[in-house]
């Protein structure tokens, strides 16, 4: 496939590395990503509204809440950090909680790595749009990822995340207590929706069950976020001979190498 001489295409050409293995970023693919991200953006926007309210209750100013969403852009980590502050915890503890809550992005980033071309700093930047829904949608199902889908769907979710935070922060008095409207249930429900799309076969269901059990077993002992990262160990079921054979078949069916 020839790369069209777009701005992104030119940028790609100036950063050559494995250029043939990674198709250029086409406008159409980015737009498809934006479209696919809309439902998640709507759900995320509602969640962001409740973040805007909760952040102020924890002592952040309206502007600080909006800036935090704009520069951090990691919902669960933001909620975790704010929860520590609201309990009277130290800022250092809040940042640590955010880091632990984000630790799953370490696993997701490792998964994405082979699909992101370019030099180290460019790959570091391309890793930034990693959020749960975009990462899941960008997965090609063969261990590779469609980065145009990642960028496009994260772009629309970013707009909704920052916009929703602004609405919640500026209009928080009107909304009142977000828990009264069940807005706190949106986040786990959102992940339940993502999970259901991943349960393709017996193996993925077994891994999901094992991941859930690992996480629940660790909840009473480990700080928030660690049980989730630990659950990724369930994916080691992919190392069995049968799983590797199935993976090879999936890659061949997807036309990969």
């Amino acid at each position: 496939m020839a790369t069209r001489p777009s701005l992104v295409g030119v940028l790609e050409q100036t950063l050559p590395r494995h250029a043939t293995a990674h198709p250029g970023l086409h406008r159409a693919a980015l737009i498809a990503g934006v479209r696919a991200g809309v439902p998640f953006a709507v759900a995320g926007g509602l969640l962001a509204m409740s973040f805007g309210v909760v952040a102020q209750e924890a002592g952040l100013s309206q502007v600080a809440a909006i800036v935090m969403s704009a520069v951090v852009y990691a919902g669960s980590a933001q909620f975790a950090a704010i929860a520590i502050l609201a309990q009277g915890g130290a800022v250092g503890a809040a940042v640590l909680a955010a880091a632990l809550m984000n630790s799953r992005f370490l696993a997701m980033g490792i998964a994405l790595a082979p699909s992101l071309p370019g030099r180290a700093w460019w790959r570091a930047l391309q890793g930034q749009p990693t959020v749960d829904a975009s990462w899941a949608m960008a997965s090609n199902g063969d261990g590779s990822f469609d980065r145009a889908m990642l960028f496009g769907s994260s772009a629309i979710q970013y707009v909704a995340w920052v916009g929703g935070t602004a609405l919640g922060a500026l209009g928080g008095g009107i909304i009142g207590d977000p828990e009264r409207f069940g807005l706190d249930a949106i986040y786990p429900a959102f992940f339940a929706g993502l999970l259901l799309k991943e349960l393709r076969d017996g193996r993925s269901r077994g891994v999901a069950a094992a991941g859930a059990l690992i996480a629940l077993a660790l909840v009473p002992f480990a700080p928030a976020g660690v049980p989730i990262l630990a659950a990724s160990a369930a994916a080691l079921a992919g190392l069995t001979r049968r799983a590797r054979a199935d993976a090879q078949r999936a890659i061949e069916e997807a036309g990969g190498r």
Partner: protein
Amino acid sequence: MSSSFVLIAGCAVVTFVIKAAGPVALGGRDLPIAFRSVIMLLAPALFAALVVTQALADGDQLRIGPETAGVAAGGLVAWRTGSIIGCVAAAAIVTAALRAI
């Protein structure tokens, strides 16, 4: 320097580093089939853990509350309709209704 600024800057930096680490360390090269096979199973493991820790846990305590029922309702809607909007709407409505009772 206000504590809000330190909080926001700290969270921004750790998030950047965590999201950048994998792509910087392992980017742009093909990895063996065993690695890809594990990657394909990462999503079900991570998302299942996210669902149960948020629907069944409050801090370090395991508990069942209105949001547990709400998430179950949302999951049911997602499973039957495939709609993520329907899923989160059902979860919020059921949770709010149970809290109102």
